[in-house]
């Protein structure tokens, strides 16, 4: 139900144990001091790149940043599928 994607969104307080699984280091960058980290994200029903961009960056217009980081997985930015795993840079 799309309705359940329209709630007032609040960031989740990450549990310490879950944090390492949520974060991966960006390839080619050092893993020091948390800089240059990206997050794994699994596409949910009703998602679009602009919705994800709004959720993570507060600006739907930054969807291209996500698209560029996942060009190997996303052929068409209008075609993403639930269950697909992408990286949020």
């Amino acid at each position, binding site marked *: 139900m799309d309705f359940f994607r*329209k*709630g*007032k*969104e609040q*960031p989740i307080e990450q549990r310490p144990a879950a944090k390492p699984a949520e974060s991966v280091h960006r390839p080619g960058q050092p893993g020091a001091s948390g800089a240059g980290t990206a997050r794994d*994200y*699994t596409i*949910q029903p009703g998602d679009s790149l602009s919705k994800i961009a709004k959720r993570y960056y507060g600006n739907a217009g930054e969807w291209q940043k996500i698209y560029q980081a996942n060009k190997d997985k996303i052929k068409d930015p209008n075609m993403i599928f639930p269950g697909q795993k992408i990286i949020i840079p």
Partner: protein
Amino acid sequence: MMHIWNNKLIVITAIMCLVACSRSENLTAEEKIAGKDEKTWKAKRETDATGDVDRLSRDEKRESITFWRNGNVKMGNGDQVMSGQWSLEGNNLRLQFTGSDVSENFTVLKLDKDQLRLRAGDGSELVMKPK
């Protein structure tokens, strides 16, 4: 004499009915949402922020959401399923779906064992009935 006994019998029966009814309604908010163990709800009607009815799609009519008392929640139509955790704080229903970094929060406008009415962040409202 018989007439007085009949009246007493009616009063006693009425009191017993009232007690029984009030006991069956004495559920916590969590029990109304998730039943004793689990409870499944289906969308009945959705309205947008202006109050206009949004027609539910065929897929949306197939979808249901199940709340467990242990805090788990599952939503889907059989083909696509989303699961996560739910909690109720006052009149705020909080859903956190697995894989999402944000929780979705809804205002509970009406809650009884036969109806759940929620308002989303954009002002739209959803009325749900138990499956």
